[in-house]
């Protein structure tokens, strides 16, 4: 209910169009309903032996009304299409802006495909409703009442008999809404899972063939295929049965009118013309019945689609700019984490009690397995996510949030915090206060988000380039950058020579429609993009994919050019980078397990020292075999 009225608010922004097509629809309906009356007149004139010229006049009158009906029908269709397109334009713009403003948590929660469907397929469904829904319902009701009114004008007694048709129309509308369409929806869903199985099999055909599981997969496909078959046949069966229902009801009514009307005719209460007019009116009841049923269906679908689409507009961002942001010219680049926790909405604790300080210009190497939390650390700095801001306790190895009044519910019991501690089942637990991430000793949440992010650059291992020219991609952060600036950024990123070697140089299109760049080339374009943006703080995700040695060296050089004078967080496996870092942080399951310089950690003699020793040994083996190789296995 609410979703459609919300959609209607958008429609009413184009009031002129809305009123325009509704009123022409009214005019069209009146013309349409007038035609049977002309018909009555002509038939009666003809049976009464009127002059040919009178007949022609009335016949032309009929044609004229049909023409006017056609004209006003065209206008109302066109104007409603105009309105629908305007609304869709507005809605898409609003959706797009809203998508641009969303925080990353939104993109994590919703798969790309789903978001895309909400802003494409669902919007198309709403357009259908805007285009047809209002009119169809309006015209349906109008025609329904109008047809009966005209019947009444012709013959009141027969009209009363004809009221018996109404239950048939109601059943028709009801059955389609409740019985037929749900089966169609269900069959669409089933079709989705059939496609998914087919797709999986085609993509994984090599595995299927090598495990010789073809027969099993065929059976799986056959099962899905058959389920779909059963549903689609059932949907077709229901539709084949109920679609002609309205025709049958009106046909039966016509049959009855033959008898009742015939009686009236014999008694002299009904003329030929009136009978013919009545027959024509009965068949005109098709229209409101079908329109109303159709309108209900469109309403159902549009309502569901609107709900999904408006969800995108309504999701509240968790990360928001502060009311009174701090003013600053240029940040220095000191980054401090003070006892920072982080979770996805209070479940899944990703970071626990992380503290460190990085001075401006220092390089930090982050090490740790997938899911250890190193990526989360770097995501908190530009506020792609926010640090936990509730107090927490850790009970039986699990972390829980306290609510704002210091209460917590566990296993159905409620516990209250007092003086920084909490008793749970005879166990005294300490309550941890929320931590903070700082840049230049100011909480990151006090910066205006666009300014904050402009001061931070990120380069990913598999960077995303837009379908645009290389020039536009490099100048992404600063579209006004001069040619020299772009070229010098590309040079520093060691990609200039490659770009020049392309036929269209900097104007070469990349991405879907353009040339495909290798991972190493994309990475260097992204580095150039970051150099041009000139951020104070730099975040590099550099888990190198397979590249040849030359590319490797170029990337290395490009990264070094980029890192000069910037506070840098780097996720890398490259030993020389790690070794030269000002600080090495090793993460495991959301905690820092080792932190310090290369020398300190080697001296500490634990994990890093172990890693480093292994590596050195490997290098030594390689060197040894180089020297004594011939003798080892000789």
């Amino acid at each position, binding site marked *: 209910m609410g979703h459609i009225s919300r959609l209607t608010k958008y429609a009413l922004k184009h009031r002129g169009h809305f009123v325009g097509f509704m009123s022409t629809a009214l005019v069209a309906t009146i013309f349409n309903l007038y035609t049977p009356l002309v018909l009555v007149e002509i038939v009666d004139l003809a049976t009464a032996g009127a002059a040919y010229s009178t007949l022609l006049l009335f016949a032309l009158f009929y044609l004229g009304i049909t023409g006017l009906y056609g004209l006003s029908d065209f206008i109302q269709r066109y104007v409603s299409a105009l309105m629908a397109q305007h609304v869709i334009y507005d809605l898409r713009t609003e959706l797009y802006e809203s998508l641009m403003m969303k925080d990353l948590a939104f993109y994590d929660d919703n798969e790309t495909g789903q978001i895309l469907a909400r802003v494409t397929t669902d919007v198309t469904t709403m357009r259908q409703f805007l285009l047809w829904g209002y009119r169809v319902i309006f015209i349906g009701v109008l025609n329904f009442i109008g047809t009966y009114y005209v019947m009444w004008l012709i013959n009141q007694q027969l009209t009363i008999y004809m009221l018996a048709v109404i239950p048939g129309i109601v059943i028709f509308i009801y059955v389609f809404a409740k019985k037929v369409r749900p089966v169609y929806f269900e069959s669409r869903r089933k079709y989705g899972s059939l496609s998914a199985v087919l797709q999986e099999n085609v*993509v994984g055909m090599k595995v299927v063939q090598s495990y010789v599981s073809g027969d099993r997969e065929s059976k799986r496909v056959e099962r899905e295929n058959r389920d779909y078959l059963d549903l689609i046949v059932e949907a077709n069966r229901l539709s084949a049965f109920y679609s002609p229902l309205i025709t049958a009801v009106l046909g039966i009514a*016509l*049959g009855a009118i033959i008898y009742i009307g015939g009686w009236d005719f014999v008694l002299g209460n009904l003329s030929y013309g009136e009978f*013919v007019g009545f027959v024509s009116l009965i068949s005109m009841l098709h229209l409101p019945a079908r329109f109303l049923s159709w309108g209900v269906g469109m309403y159902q679908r549009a309502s569901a689609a609107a709900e999904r689409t408006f969800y995108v507009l309504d999701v509240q961002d968790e990360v928001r700019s502060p009311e009174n942001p701090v003013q600053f010219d240029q940040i220095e680049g000191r980054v401090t984490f003070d006892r920072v926790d982080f979770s996805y909405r209070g479940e899944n604790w990703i970071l626990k009690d992380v503290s460190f300080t990085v001075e401006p210009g220092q390089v930090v190497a982050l090490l740790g397995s*997938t899911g250890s939390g190193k990526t989360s650390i770097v995501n908190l700095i530009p506020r792609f996510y926010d640090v936990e801001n509730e107090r927490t306790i850790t009970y039986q190895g699990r972390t829980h949030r306290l609510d704002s009044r210091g209460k917590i519910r566990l296993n159905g019991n409620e516990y209250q915090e007092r003086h920084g501690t909490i008793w749970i089942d005879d166990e005294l637990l300490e309550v941890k206060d929320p931590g903070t991430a700082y840049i230049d000793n100011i909480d990151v949440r006090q910066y205006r988000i666009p300014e904050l992010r402009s001061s931070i650059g990120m380069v990913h291992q598999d960077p995303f380039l837009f379908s645009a020219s290389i020039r536009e991609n490099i100048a992404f952060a600063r579209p006004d950058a001069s040619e020299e600036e772009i070229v010098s950024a590309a040079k520093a990123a060691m990609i200039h020579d490659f770009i020049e070697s392309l036929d269209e140089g900097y104007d070469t299109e990349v991405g879907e429609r353009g040339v495909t760049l290798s991972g190493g080339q994309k990475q260097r374009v992204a580095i150039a993009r970051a150099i041009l943006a000139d951020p104070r703080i730099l975040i590099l995700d550099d888990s190198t994919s397979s590249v040849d040695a030359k590319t490797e060296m170029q990337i290395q050089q490009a990264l070094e050019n980029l890192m000069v004078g910037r506070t840098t967080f780097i996720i890398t496996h490259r030993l020389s980078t790690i070794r030269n870092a000002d600080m090495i942080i090793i993460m495991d399951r959301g905690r820092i397990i080792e932190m310090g310089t290369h020398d300190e950690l080697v001296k500490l003699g*634990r994990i890093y020292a172990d890693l480093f020793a292994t590596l050195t040994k490997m290098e030594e083996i*390689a060197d040894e075999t180089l020297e004594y*190789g011939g003798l080892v*296995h000789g």
Partner: protein
Amino acid sequence: MGSHMDFDEEERTHVYSDWTLLRRMVGYLLRYRGLVAVVAVLIIVDIAVSIAAPFVLRHALDVDFVSGDLQALLFSSLLYIALVVVTWFSTYGHGYYSALMGQRAVFRLRQDLFEHLQIMSQDYYDKTSSGSIISRLTNDIDRISELLSGGLFNTLAQFFIVFAVGAVVFTVDFQLSLVLLTVVPILAVSTHVFRMKAREAYRRTRRTISSVTANLAESISGAKVTKTFTRERESVIKFAELNQADFQSNVDAAKFASAFFPAIRFIGGLGVFLILWIGGIRVVEGTLSVGSLLFFLQMNSIFFRPIIIITSFYNTVQSAFAGSERVFAILDTTPSIEDQPGAIDLPPIRGHVKYSNVNFSYVEGTPVLQDFSLEIEAGETVALVGDTGAGKTTVVNLLNRFYDVDSGRVLIDGIDIRDVTRESLRASLGLVLQDSFLFSGTVIENIRYGRPYATDDEVVNATETIGAKRLIESLENGFDTEVGERGSRLSEGERQLVSFARALLANPRILVLDEATSSIDIYTEHTIQRGMKALLKGRTSIVIAHRLSTIVNADRIIVLEDGRIVETGRHGELMAKRGKYYSLYELQIKPRAILVREHEISEEPLLEAAVASGGVPVSENGTVADDRD
């Protein structure tokens, strides 16, 4: 959706005449001859009854009304109602049965296509994008479905109606019949012209909407970059342009769409006008009854639907032809590798592999393997190394018979692999791919993939041997965790381990392992190395190796260059030669080798500690506070 992403430009491998396509599509329907007959009979009943009804009405009006015989009037009335009820059931009957037979035919076709795809050899999948194959199985078959389930018979019925009505009306009145039939060509021609115009306009809207969709898709995937560089405003402006273009093309198309039905109805109105005028005169003259006048008015409206349906059928047929051509092209492509007549099942093997003077090329004239010979002892692990394109993957593709040799032989335990069935061959071989492909379903279902009837204990044992048991148990629902589409809910390392367990459980004598080129984080790498050791143990293994630890652990390293073996030996020996291997090592293997710990494999201090305590406490300055063991 999706239709604008057609692969119409794709090259046509097979060319068929429309007649052939139609015959083959209808062939699928004719498997259900009984249903076809039932549908045909019901359609004839339907048409006969629908045409009879206006006659009854005419009779009532002209005879019963005038005579005033209430008995006869009642009879006419009941007869009319009876005809209506019969029409309902015959319409229902042929609607249902034609959907049933059409959908069954489509079911069969889809199943045939899928099963045919399963026997296609690997070269086909290398040449054809999976997107286009999927489009054959879904979009193209849907188009055929529109024709087969209802469309075809319904349209034939409409033609029949037009001719039947056209013939029947002449029995009532010759002059008015001619009047009636003058409208038909006008209706048919203008409908057709409108459709052509509208199609052009709609084609433009499809182009504009696909740019809108493409931009949206890119913006959603690139959201993080846009945010990093705070470029939201500019993106909005760019989108607004595309949105505006889509608005305009749709408004243009709306002009045609809005005019279509009013225009068609006006032409119908023209028919009514002619009947009223000329018929009216005839009534005045006394040469036409009122019943006949009404009869012609009704016939005029009966003409409408068939003509609109017939003109729209043109589109249905065209797209069904296009779709079926692509579907039949696949069905008619024979797999390039088939079992030889009289091929036997491969007996249980020890695992001795021999390539003897093998030549092979994917494209004629550019040989990939030349006079390639290699013997691998049962139980031996060999690592294949070399540049991209050196022929590593080809070597294993030939063993799996994803491709067949051009000349020479590949032998397993002395048996030429072309003499055995591909099924039995592949059942004895295990293949672990670098991008470990999992099927949607649970972890345990995936591990059981090669041996569906393995017991729970066997599954658990396999995972334990691989060293993945604890990792899997720590997942949300342990072994019953849903892995998502293509395993997307697991990390790369987890996927790899599950695929190891899957291969181990299948327990092949010979294992082919295509190692991932991308580097993964050090801890995962560490776990994977351990799993890999367990998996390779006691089998003949051929590894396309990229990681130093794998290479060093191999019994023998085979160095390939341009389809030839240039060096073989162990790491140390090859390094000393300072040949191809040495340069590969320096340029490719070493850069990737960093931070792989491959000693003390059995110990897992990091994972151990983490699992036991949920993390290690850290002191204020970030160093480890307590010394645990």
